[in-house]
C-alpha cells in the first residue's frame, strides 16, 4: 500500500473537510481589492486592433445593398468583415447538444430581424477610426412588417421573423411547435370546480446591466492557435461555439477568462468572441471587440419577456383540482437559449403542488425584438412569480390564509407529479412552516403539524386517466368564474366525479386572524 507523506504541508491541510459553518475566503479577493485582478480588457496587447459593428436601424428589413467601399479606404481601417467572410455564418447556441436548427448569422447577409442586429464589422487601429469608418457604411434597407407581440406572432398571416421557423415558434424534435404537459383531465376538473380563476401575467424583458460590458480580445498565438481573453461566463461553451462558427478544430483556441465583471446570464451568448477571433484570423493581429454601454443596454440580450395565462379550478375547501397554463416566451429574433427555457418552464409546472389535473402549453415564440438569453433561473423565475401570485389570489378567493392554502396544496412524498415522477424529498410544507414562524405569521395548529412525509402517496400516487385532447365538457351554468365581484350562485347538484378525489385535509375553519372572505362558500353548496 502506498503511504502518502502527510507531514509535508501538514499545516496547510485539514483532512476533516468540515467546511459548513466556517467562513471561507475567496481566492480572488486580494486581486479585487487591490485592483490587480485581470478582467479581459486588462490585457493590453501590442498592435491591438479594435472591432466595431454596424447595427441594423430597422426591426425587420431586407438588406438590399451594403456599400463598404468608403470604409475600406477609411484611415486606420485594416479589414472590413462581411457575412460572407464568416466560415459558418449560421448557428444556434444549443446545436452543441444537438438541440435546434442553426438560425442566427454572426453578420446579417440578406435580412435583419431585430433592431441592432450586426451587419458589418470594421477592424481599425483605434476605436475612433472604427467608429468613423462605420459612419461611412451605407446600408439600403427595405423595411418589412414587424411583429413585437408573442400572440400576434402566432396568428396566421403574421410576418415571418425567421424562415428557419416559418410559424414563428421553435420546433421540438422537428415536429412539435410547443412543449406540452398533460396529466389527468384539466377541462373536466375545471368544469367541476367550485371556482375558476383565470389571470394573465406579463413580464418585461430584463436587462442584466453588468458593470463590465460584454467583450473579448482574440490574438494569434503560436502554432496556428489563438488565445482569447473573454468576459464569457462559459469558457468551454464559448470555445466550442467559436470552433463551430469559424469551422476549425476546437483545440485551435485557448480561452482565458473566469474573471467576469458581472454576468448574471448575459455573458453566455458568445456574441463578441467569434468576430474578434475572425478579425484576428484575417489581420494576423490582436483584435478587441467590446460592447459600449449603450450597445450593452439596448442590444445585449435580456432575459426574455414572458406572457403566462393561468386558469385554475379550486374547491371551496382550498384544494386546487385543475391547473391549465398557457405561456409564451418572447425569444426575440433568434433561438439562443429560449428553447431550453421553455423546457424548464414546462418541467416546473404546476409548481410544488399536487394537483390532479394539469394541462400546460408552452411556446417559444419569435418576434422582431432583441434575442433573449439566460438570466438567473430563466424559464423558472417568471413562471414562479406567476404561480405564486396566482396562489395568493386563489387563497383570497376561497377565503383561506395564503400560507395555509399552500400547505393544503403542497406536494408530499409519494405523490405523483404531473410529469409522472414520484415526488421525493419534498419540503414545501416545512419551508412554509419555518417562514411563517420567522415572520410571526400565525398558522393554525393542524397546519403546524402537517408534514411532507405524511399523507402523500396512496390515491395521490396514481397517474390519472389522461384523455387525448378530448373536447372540453360543458361547464355548469351557474358555476362561479373569476369571481372577485360576482354574487353567489344558486346551489346546484354536482355531477359525480369519475376520478376519486385525493383525501383532503380536514376542512379548515374560518381563519381566526381575520383573512378576508367574500364568496358564498363555507357550507352553502352541497357536494
Amino acid at each position, binding site marked *: 500500500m502506498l503511504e502518502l507523506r502527510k507531514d509535508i504541508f501538514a499545516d496547510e491541510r485539514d483532512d476533516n473537510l468540515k467546511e459548513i459553518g466556517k467562513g471561507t*475566503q*475567496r481566492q*480572488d*479577493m*486580494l*486581486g*479585487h*481589492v*487591490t*485592483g*490587480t*485582478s*485581470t*478582467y479581459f*480588457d*486588462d490585457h*493590453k496587447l501590442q498592435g491591438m486592433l479594435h472591432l466595431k459593428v454596424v447595427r441594423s436601424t430597422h426591426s425587420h428589413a431586407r438588406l438590399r445593398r451594403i456599400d463598404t467601399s468608403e470604409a475600406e479606404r477609411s484611415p486606420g481601417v485594416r479589414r472590413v468583415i462581411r457575412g460572407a467572410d464568416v466560415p459558418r455564418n449560421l448557428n444556434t447556441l444549443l446545436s452543441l447538444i444537438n438541440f435546434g436548427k442553426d438560425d442566427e448569422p454572426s453578420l446579417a447577409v440578406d435580412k435583419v430581424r431585430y433592431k441592432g442586429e450586426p451587419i458589418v464589422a470594421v477592424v481599425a487601429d483605434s476605436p*475612433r477610426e472604427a467608429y468613423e469608418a462605420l459612419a461611412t457604411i451605407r446600408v439600403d434597407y427595405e423595411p418589412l412588417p414587424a411583429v413585437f407581440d408573442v400572440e400576434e406572432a402566432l396568428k396566421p398571416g403574421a410576418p415571418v421573423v425567421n424562415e428557419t421557423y416559418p410559424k414563428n415558434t421553435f420546433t421540438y424534435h422537428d415536429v412539435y411547435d410547443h412543449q406540452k404537459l398533460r396529466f389527468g383531465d384539466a377541462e373536466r376538473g375545471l368544469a367541476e370546480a367550485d371556482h375558476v380563476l383565470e389571470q394573465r401575467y406579463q413580464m418585461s424583458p430584463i436587462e*442584466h*446591466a*453588468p*458593470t*463590465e*460590458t460584454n467583450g473579448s480580445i482574440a490574438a494569434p498565438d503560436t502554432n496556428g492557435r489563438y488565445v482569447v481573453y473573454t468576459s464569457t461566463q462559459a469558457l468551454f461553451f464559448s470555445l466550442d461555439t467559436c470552433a463551430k462558427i469559424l469551422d476549425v478544430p476546437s483545440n485551435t483556441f485557448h480561452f482565458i477568462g473566469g*474573471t*467576469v*465583471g*458581472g*454576468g*448574471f446570464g448575459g455573458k453566455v451568448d458568445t456574441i463578441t468572441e467569434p468576430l474578434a477571433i475572425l478579425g484576428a484570423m484575417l489581420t494576423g493581429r490582436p483584435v478587441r471587440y467590446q460592447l*459600449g*454601454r449603450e450597445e450593452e443596454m439596448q442590444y445585449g440580450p435580456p432575459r426574455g419577456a414572458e406572457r403566462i395565462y393561468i386558469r385554475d379550478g379550486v374547491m371551496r375547501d382550498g384544494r386546487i383540482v385543475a391547473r391549465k397554463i398557457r405561456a409564451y416566451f418572447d425569444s426575440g429574433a433568434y433561438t439562443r437559449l429560449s428553447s431550453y427555457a421553455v423546457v424548464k418552464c414546462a418541467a416546473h409546472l404546476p409548481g410544488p403542488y399536487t394537483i390532479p389535473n394539469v394541462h400546460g402549453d408552452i411556446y417559444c415564440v419569435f418576434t422582431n425584438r432583441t434575442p433573449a438569453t439566460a438570466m438567473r433561473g430563466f424559464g423558472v423565475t417568471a413562471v414562479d412569480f406567476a404561480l405564486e401570485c396566482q396562489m395568493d389570489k386563489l387563497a383570497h378567493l376561497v377565503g383561506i390564509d395564503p400560507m395555509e392554502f399552500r400547505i393544503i396544496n403542497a406536494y408530499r412524498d409519494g405523490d405523483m407529479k404531473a410529469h409522472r415522477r414520484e415526488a421525493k424529498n419534498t419540503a414545501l410544507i416545512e419551508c412554509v412552516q419555518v417562514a411563517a414562524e420567522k415572520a410571526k405569521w400565525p398558522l393554525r395548529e393542524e397546519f403546524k403539524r402537517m408534514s411532507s412525509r405524511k399523507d402523500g402517496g396512496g390515491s395521490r400516487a396514481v397517474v390519472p386517466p389522461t384523455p387525448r385532447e378530448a373536447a372540453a365538457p360543458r361547464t355548469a351554468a351557474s358555476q362561479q368564474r373569476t369571481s372577485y365581484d360576482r354574487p353567489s350562485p344558486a346551489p346546484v347538484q354536482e355531477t359525480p366525479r369519475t376520478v376519486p378525489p385525493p383525501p383532503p385535509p380536514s376542512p379548515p375553519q374560518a381563519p381566526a386572524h381575520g383573512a378576508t372572505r367574500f364568496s358564498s362558500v363555507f357550507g352553502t353548496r352541497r357536494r
Partner: protein
Amino acid sequence: MTTAVPISLEVNRERIEAHVLPRVNLADFLREHLKLTGTHVGCEHGVCGACTVRVNGEIVRSCLMLAVQTHGASVETIEGLSDSGEIADLQAAFRDRNALQCGYCTPGMLMAAKALLDRNPSPTRAEVVEAISGNICRCTGYEPIINAVLAAATSGRARA
C-alpha cells in the same frame, strides 16, 4: 487630425511625461498608456463610478476628464492607494465582510469610501450610503459594502 499635446503629471507619485491626443480621457490614458488597469470603465458617461480616481486629492470620474486636463496635476489610482497602504483597513474590511462579488466596482467603491473616511472618520450609516451613492454595484445589493466601510471606520479609529 488633431495633434498630440504634451503633458506632465504625477501618477501615484511618479512623474509621467506623455503626448496625448486631446480626446483621450483620463480613464483610457491610465489604462492604455500607463497600463494601470485597476481603474475600470463601465459607462463612459459618468454614471456608474467604476472609473473613480483621485486628482489633486479629490475623487473624480476619470471618464469625464481629459488626460490633457491633468497637466500639472497629481493623479492617484487604486494601485497607488493600495501600494501606499492607506486603504488597508478598507481592503481588510471588504475582504472580511464579502463586500464584493464580481469585483468590477470595487476599486471605485474603495476610492469613494476612502474619500468619505478622510473627511469624516466616524460616518453614520446614512452618511456612508450618501458617499457611495454615485457608485453602482450590480452584484451585492450594497449592504455588505456599507457594513465594510463602517467596520473600516471603526478599526481606523481604534488605531488612531
